[in-house]
């Protein structure tokens, strides 16, 4: 089971500009990200023999990865589009690594983008939100996406005494990093009071507890650890993966307050031979602030139920015990939907290359990246290292 540890490396990583990007379509953002990653890796498109994308909501294709390959005129032997929401990025990295390790292909490009801010009309955005959930047994009750997550937040508050201010600390921490990140969409400083006094969206979630709606694209290039040494940038090695999948619909969840991040984390730690105390920097999926508290607990960074006090302690801030979401996260950097967690991955690569400028975590050696998709449905944990041993 630990056969993949250290065998695969990320040799290219890049983001497009993010935020409100009306002059590029979702397809163009996807190709732009790919091209930036190729330049970062110092290779030509003809060296790509595996391509993975996720479909776009603003500009969908029946066969999205094939459409991107066609656009770029590349002819891969391994080609697919995936769709497990925010968990897509890391679960697909798992598959790509397996494909490289088993010799199916040598060099995989993962590129993802969407244009949720500029590419969807208001009616389309509403229709998308209205379609989230079970079409017979959930959507009739008028849930917005924040409302689904509010059910999780309320359950956590009830069970563990978590407060709105503790959830708000997650948003404040992310914004502090965004202030240091010139590419982030939202960089104005915020306080706990700003969050809890922002407009109520679905009680207990306020506007600033909710992630952004953005345009943007991001891409990485993977190859074997042996080949990785021939690329211009310091390789970032994949040390561990783990997935956990508990449900599709939140009304069918085994628990509202404990997620399958428990399983994904344990599996990733086991493969890496590492534990929570070995992690120098973490990128934890932050579509809504309470999600982060549950993931921090389930990944073992604090005791179960202690996510609120942990976030409020400042531990996740720069200089804290667990610098987290160092690009600003989905709450402050950008969130273009399914591709959202790609930016966490490229940020982790920057941190481990030691090129994260003002937000660099001093001497970062090991990073944990965690994504979740659906409504706490699919969880994937990835552990990356600056060295492969």
């Amino acid at each position, binding site marked *: 089971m630990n056969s993949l540890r250290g065998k695969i490396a990320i040799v290219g990583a890049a983001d497009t500009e993010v935020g409100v990007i009306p002059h590029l379509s979702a397809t163009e953002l996807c190709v732009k990200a790919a091209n930036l990653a190729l330049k970062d890796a110092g290779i030509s498109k003809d060296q790509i023999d595996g391509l993975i994308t996720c479909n776009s909501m603003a500009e969908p294709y029946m066969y999205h990865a094939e459409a991107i390959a066609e656009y770029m005129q590349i002819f891969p032997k391994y080609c697919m589009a995936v769709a497990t929401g925010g968990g897509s990025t890391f679960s697909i990295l798992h598959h790509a690594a397996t494909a490289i390790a088993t010799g199916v292909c040598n060099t995989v490009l993962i590129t993802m983008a969407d244009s949720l801010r500029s590419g969807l009309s208001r009616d389309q955005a509403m229709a998308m939100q209205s379609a989230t959930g079970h079409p017979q047994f959930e959507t009739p009750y008028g849930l917005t996406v*924040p409302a689904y997550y509010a059910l999780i937040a309320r359950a956590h508050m009830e069970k563990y005494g978590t407060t709105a201010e503790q959830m708000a600390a997650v948003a404040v921490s992310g914004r502090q990093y965004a202030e240091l990140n010139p590419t982030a969409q939202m960089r104005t400083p915020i306080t706990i009071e700003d969050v809890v006094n922002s407009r109520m969206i679905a009680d207990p979630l306020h506007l600033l507890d909710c992630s952004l709606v953005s345009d943007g694209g991001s891409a990485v290039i993977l190859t074997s650890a042996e080949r990785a040494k021939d690329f211009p940038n310091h390789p970032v090695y994949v040390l561990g993966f783990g997935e956990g999948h508990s449900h599709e619909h939140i009304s069918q969840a085994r628990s509202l307050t404990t997620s399958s991040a428990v399983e994904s984390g344990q599996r990733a730690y086991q493969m890496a031979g590492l534990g929570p105390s070995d992690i120098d920097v973490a990128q934890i999926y932050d579509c809504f602030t309470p999600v982060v508290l549950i993931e921090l607990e389930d990944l073992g960074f604090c005791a179960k139920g202690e996510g609120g006090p942990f976030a409020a302690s400042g531990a996740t801030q720069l200089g804290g015990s667990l610098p987290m979401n160092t690009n600003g996260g989905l709450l402050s950097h950008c969130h273009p939907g399914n591709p959202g967690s790609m930016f966490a991955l490229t940020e982790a690569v920057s941190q481990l290359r030691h090129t994260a400028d003002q937000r660099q975590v001093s001497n970062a050696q090991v990073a944990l990246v965690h994504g979740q998709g659906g409504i706490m449905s699919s969880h994937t944990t990835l552990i990356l290292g600056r060295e492969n041993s």
Partner: protein
Amino acid sequence: MTQHLGKNIPTPTAGTQAYWDACHNHQLKIQCCADCQHYQFYPRIVCTQCMSEHLDWVEVSGQAQIVSYTVVARAVSKAYEMNVPYIVALVVLDEGPTMMTNIIDCSPEKVRVGMSVVVCFEDWTDEITIPKFRPTAP
């Protein structure tokens, strides 16, 4: 019923028709396994506990408790705006399964986790009636 035009009106399938037919008659019926007596919701062709395909439709008590809730301040679409603020909740039926629902006849300030609720029915169209819950105690 016109006030429900434009809402997310469910389309029954062959496997869920019995549920929606019961709702139409203002009865809450869910599946119970004939082999292991396990209650389940939503309707399926197999029992999630023993994978038996012998499932009976049983009228349940309609008594439930709120597991979690939210008060939606920004409606999901125009058709829901007149209901704002509305309560969405997960409730656990006395028989075991959990359902998504709205809590009605309850002010948003009064709703609580653990609150006892009972099923009631809202006729949305000539065919579709939506089960909702209201507090047991007035």
